[in-house]
């Protein structure tokens, strides 16, 4: 192992610069091997094995037995790198694999996710993160427990954290399983367990410290993998060098094509849809923006729920506990947002260019308007039909593929782009490695958030406050393995689609935690009884509503469906918290003084950690 002058943190630029060059070199080497006739399966294996080995290596090298290192990476992560790690932590398999496909299939309304998942960071920066950094917590329930006092408040926060994060992590492990299964040509169930092994290797020995440095490495892989195909396509289609600028002209062309081909008017017949099962035809145009009140309201509510959820999800908030100062915690939120934009600003362009490749009759790869036999003979159509990701159903029997006869899963927009656009296989391998990096990095953050809350808040603070550091860290690791195994088990049951579970996690988090966190900083009068009422009431109301709408067949009220149940949970939480706080005694002088301390950056951290 190379010894670096001044330690690892002082040499981050050098280390990750070399790493990035090494990774690009590896991609080029794979390209050469492909040209030399090496089989696709072997290239897929190499991509997955090489990247996962690197992550595991970083994980092992970052092992630690110090609690400060294990829980908050020693509080020495520079703002830029923490931003990069947060971006990887944040962008899940859903962002990487499903987002562009969502925009492709569901058009403008889906872009509410893009607005919500970025604007939430404004709330993180201005309302929560710097104050929690000053507080000096190890976990989010640690803040709730100390600010409001008492084990019950802490316990409620732990429960909400576990429910929200566990909902989310099963979707991520599912994502790693899907990608691993495809790239390695192994059964999905086996892929899930292999994915889990990789995830645990990254986090188990070094906790937050290891996760931080692997997440930086994973961000680099995922962003390279996302950008290369889009740039390639934009140039191949002749719209321009930079897809982000070229997309607006392309949108005009797409809208033209959409109205010619009947997107939004030519719906699939009932029989065709039945034959296609869960796959979807294109029914909404890319720029059919909201017009009526209900459309605008649905956009608004989704944006609001995703934003408040962003600001209450513990695996995101805890990343800002690791910066070296309050000042850098704030700046780091800005960097996170920039790094996230690297992918989010590209997703609409990817959706638009994919539409052009498939719909524009002037483009060689287009399929709409061609004969059914010609389309079903295409190699990539056959490959993805075989795994059930797409289907051509000739609804009117005229032998020509119309817009309402081509059914697909949104995921293939990212996964199949390289094959669709006729790019070499090495790009497919790269995309698989990127999807794996996105899902693994988020799963790592979530598993760690859960295990840390259980080991620090439940075990150490509530069950055995006398436990020594070594015991605590061993408990933390055992819990990490158990929760990971539970997540993999649930994921292998394939209960929900990736996106459903992700939106639920956001609503669970904002129903239960948003107001207790925000008011804990911004309203001194908020007390223990109010916080407990807010957490239990908000979370309970949200969960009840989700159950009624999703499983008991209730008609959604005001268009508030299972994706938006935070619209029920949050107001209940806010009202209960204010009313109950005002009805009970104000917090003691010591607590009020603590809140004053949180509000200024100077001085020592407030908690005893």
């Amino acid at each position, binding site marked *: 192992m190379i010894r670096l002058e001044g330690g690892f943190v002082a040499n981050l630029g050098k280390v990750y610069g070399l790493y990035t060059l090494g990774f690009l070199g590896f991609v080029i080497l794979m390209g050469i091997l492909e040209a030399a006739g090496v089989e696709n399966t072997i290239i897929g294996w190499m991509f997955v094995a090489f990247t996962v080995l690197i992550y595991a290596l970083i994980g092992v090298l970052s092992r630690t037995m110090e609690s400060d290192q294990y829980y908050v990476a020693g509080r020495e992560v520079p703002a830029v790198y923490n931003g990069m790690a947060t971006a990887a932590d944040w962008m899940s398999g859903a962002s990487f694999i499903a987002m562009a496909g969502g*925009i492709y299939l569901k058009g*403008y309304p889906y*872009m*509410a996710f*893009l*607005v*919500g998942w*970025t*604007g939430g*960071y*404004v*709330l993180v*920066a*201005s*309302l929560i993160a*710097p104050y929690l950094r000053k507080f000096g917590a190890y976990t989010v329930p640690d803040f709730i427990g100390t600010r409001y006092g008492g084990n019950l408040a802490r316990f409620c926060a732990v429960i909400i954290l576990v429910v929200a994060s566990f909902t989310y992590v099963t979707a991520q492990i599912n994502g790693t399983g899907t990608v691993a299964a495809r790239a390695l040509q192994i059964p999905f169930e086996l892929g899930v367990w292999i994915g889990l092994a990789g995830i645990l290797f990254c986090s188990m020995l070094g906790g937050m410290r290891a996760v931080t440095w692997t997440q930086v490495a994973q961000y680099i892989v995922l962003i390279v993998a996302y950008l290369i195909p889009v740039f390639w396509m934009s140039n191949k289609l002749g719209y321009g060098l930079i897809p*982000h600028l070229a997309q*607006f002209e392309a*949108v*005009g062309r797409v*809208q033209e094509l959409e109205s010619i081909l009947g997107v939004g008017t030519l719906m699939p017949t009932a029989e065709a849809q039945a034959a296609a099962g869960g796959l979807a035809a294109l029914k909404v145009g*890319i*720029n*059919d*923006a*909201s*017009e009526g009140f209900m*459309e*605008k309201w649905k*956009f*608004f509510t989704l*944006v*609001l729920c995703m*934003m408040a959820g962003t600001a209450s999800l513990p695996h995101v908030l805890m990343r800002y506990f690791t910066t070296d*100062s*309050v*000042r850098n915690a*704030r*700046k780091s*939120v*800005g960097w996170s*947002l*920039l790094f996230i*934009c690297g992918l*989010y*600003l590209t*997703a*609409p362009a990817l959706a638009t260019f994919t539409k052009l490749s498939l719909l524009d009759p002037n483009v060689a790869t287009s399929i709409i308007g061609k004969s059914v036999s010609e389309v079903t003979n295409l190699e990539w159509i056959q490959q993805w039909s075989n795994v059930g990701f797409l289907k051509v159903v000739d609804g009117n029997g005229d032998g020509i593929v119309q817009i309402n006869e081509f059914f697909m899963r949104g995921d293939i927009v990212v996964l199949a782009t390289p094959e669709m656009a006729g790019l070499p296989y090495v790009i497919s391998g790269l995309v698989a490695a990127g999807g794996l990096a996105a899902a693994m990095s988020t799963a790592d953050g979530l598993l760690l958030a859960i295990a840390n809350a259980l080991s620090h808040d439940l075990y150490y603070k509530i069950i055995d406050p006398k436990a020594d550091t070594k015991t605590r860290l061993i408990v933390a690791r055992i819990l990490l393995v158990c929760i990971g195994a539970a997540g993999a088990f649930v994921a292998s049951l394939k209960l929900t689609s990736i996106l459903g579970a992700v939106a639920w996690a956001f609503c669970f988090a904002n129903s239960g935690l948003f107001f207790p966190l925000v008011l804990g900083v911004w309203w001194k009068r908020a007390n223990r009884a109010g916080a407990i009422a807010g957490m239990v009431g908000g979370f309970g109301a949200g969960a009840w509503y989700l159950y009624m709408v999703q499983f008991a067949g209730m008609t959604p009220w005001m268009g508030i469906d299972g994706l938006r149940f935070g619209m029920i949970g949050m107001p209940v939480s806010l009202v209960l918290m204010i009313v109950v706080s005002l009805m009970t005694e104000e917090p003691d002088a010591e607590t009020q003084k603590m809140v*004053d301390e949180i*509000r*200024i*950056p*100077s001085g020592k951290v407030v908690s005893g950690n």
Partner: protein
Amino acid sequence: MSSKKEQHWAKTRSLTFTVLAVWAIFSFVIHWAGEGLNSPSFPGAYFMAGMGSQIAFAILVFWFASRQNKIDEEFGLEEK
């Protein structure tokens, strides 16, 4: 001593309200216009939802961070 902290908090609070006002415009107000943002020459709704708001948020967070630093320094409450 305490009044210095109170002034610091008052300024911090008004900065936060300003940030939240800008945030609300780019999160909700603009997108409420929906189809109204589109013109024959430019897909405005697509641009704002897919790019414009995100860029505004990123600028807003960096601006907030630097303003808050100035407030902290003004009252001598920054980290040493």
